[in-house]
């Protein structure tokens, strides 16, 4: 009797839960933790700043366990047309007590789906750009631990992601048109220009730079500029999503009014010209193809600036390239290799022929094993390197990671 009561109770409870799902708040997420051994090998031949010859070499190793990233999603289908989506992200052993890592509301938008042809989203979101950009922080979707260099949030201080990719949009329209075996996708988005504008002095303020007036506190965290970002993507994919191709573009301005953060400005000695608001175009392209047990991915981003005439021929243009192949040995096991490269011409401002202009080369390979549909073990070796007439920098990293979906 008791058994029957318990069975009936659970049957009722479970069926109730299932039936309520179409309008209930879904909470899910993922976390990726790794053990890494990282080595920094640095050989200095000549001082980049003074030209004095050197013969220095150092080799620093560290081993650590790190919660690379954890994301928590809230999603609710409000009715047939409206859906709400929120994405909270924690990175790099986030701790407010220790001041480590980051926490942020990555996305919080509501969408209205008129039909397959038109969906409108409003609220902070990752804008549709290249294939990887759209899922840049969805670790379980990747076979690797350490992402292609531009997308890896564990790298800080070397470059600003804003300089390469649109980081956030607030309004976006997307849609899909089906023709036979193919889908044609489009997306158009609008948002603030890069996030460096968020800390910008209000227009007309002539006080000490970096020290806002009292009333400026009212606007902290808001974009005080008139500059806005627009972007678009058109894409093609086949019905089974084994072939995907797209071209993306954005237009905004690069905040070179106070070039005091990130990127090249990590070198204290460098003096960057204040170029003002520099018009910037990003053009991206991506191609993905699944052939048998092989998955291929390619992606490129070109960032071009319209530098004011008085600063010509200075170039602050940037580039990114990425190629990847995975071989799925069986349902559970896969091996892969990839190569990514990024460069920033603005490092020419630091020294002619600088290593950073030549770019950061990051070949990598690894394998993985899906323990079940929720957990995947990952192994990866990365061999990042910079080469220049002045120094060589080698960064061999080895990762053992576990990605879990909940």
């Amino acid at each position: 009797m008791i058994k029957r009561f318990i069975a009936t109770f659970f049957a009722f409870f479970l069926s109730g839960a299932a039936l309520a799902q179409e309008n209930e708040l879904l909470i899910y997420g993922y976390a990726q933790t790794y053990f890494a051994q990282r080595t920094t090998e640095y050989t200095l031949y000549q001082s980049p700043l003074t030209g004095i010859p050197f013969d220095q070499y150092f080799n620093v190793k560290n081993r650590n366990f790190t919660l690379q990233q954890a994301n928590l999603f809230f999603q609710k289908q409000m009715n047939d047309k409206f859906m709400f989506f929120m994405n909270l992200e924690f990175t790099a052993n986030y701790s407010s007590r220790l001041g480590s890592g980051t926490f942020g509301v990555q996305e919080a938008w509501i969408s209205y789906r008129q039909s397959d042809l038109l969906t409108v989203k409003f609220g902070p979101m990752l804008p549709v750009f290249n294939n990887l950009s759209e899922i840049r922080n969805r670790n379980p979707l990747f076979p690797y631990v350490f992402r292609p260099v531009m997308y890896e949030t564990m790298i800080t201080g070397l470059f600003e992601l804003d300089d390469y990719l649109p980081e956030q949009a607030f309004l976006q329209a997307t849609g899909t048109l089906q023709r036979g075996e193919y889908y044609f996708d489009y997306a158009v988005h609008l948002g603030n220009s890069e996030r460096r504008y968020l800390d910008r002095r209000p227009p007309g303020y002539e006080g000490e730079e970096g020290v806002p007036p009292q009333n400026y506190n009212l606007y902290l965290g808001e974009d005080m500029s008139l500059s806005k970002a627009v972007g678009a993507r058109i894409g093609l994919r086949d019905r089974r999503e084994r072939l995907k191709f797209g071209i993306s573009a954005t237009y905004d301005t690069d905040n070179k009014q106070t070039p005091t953060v990130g990127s090249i400005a990590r070198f204290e000695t460098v003096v960057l010209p204040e170029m003002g608001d520099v018009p910037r175009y990003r053009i991206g392209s991506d191609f993905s193809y699944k052939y048998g047990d092989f998955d291929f991915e390619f992606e490129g981003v070109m960032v071009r600036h319209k530098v004011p005439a008085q600063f010509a021929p200075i170039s602050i243009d940037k580039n990114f390239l990425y190629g990847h192949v995975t071989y799925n040995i069986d349902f559970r096991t896969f091996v892969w290799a990839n190569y990514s490269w990024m460069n920033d011409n603005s490092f020419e401002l630091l020294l002619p022929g600088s290593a950073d202009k030549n770019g950061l080369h990051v070949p990598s390979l690894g394998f993985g094993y899906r323990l079940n549909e929720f957990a995947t073990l990952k192994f990866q070796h990365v061999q990042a390197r910079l080469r220049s007439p002045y120094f060589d920098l080698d960064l061999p990293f080895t990762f053992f990671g576990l990605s879990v979906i909940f």
Partner: protein
Amino acid sequence: MSILTYISSLLLAFWFGFSAPVPGETIRVIVHESVSINEIDANGLLDIYLLNSQNWGDGSKIYVTDFKGSNELKNRFYELLKMKPAEIQKIWLKKQFSGKAIPPTTVNSEEELIKRVVATKGAIGYVTSTTLPEGVKVIARFN
């Protein structure tokens, strides 16, 4: 074919994971009675199960149901769509994590699936059961 050849073929097939299609019961695709369409082909199902089509013809939301884990019916259904389970799961995750779609609701049994389709306006699922309650209609059959 000698017995040895037959056994070695079987062992090879087992070793490499090949399996001959086993004829099973008819797969019936069922929807809530309010759904405006009365028939659908494999391509239409593919569009729905890859979450590319999210609305019925009258604009109402499609709620996809599927089975948890792996079972013979699910494997046969995916073969019909010419997709591998891992492929479909990856596409679902990608769309779920980017907020493009609500992932399918998964259930443990045909009985549970039928109950869900009966109770959910716009729901779709697949079963082999021949006895179906009021409140659902069959829009496709596959052998």
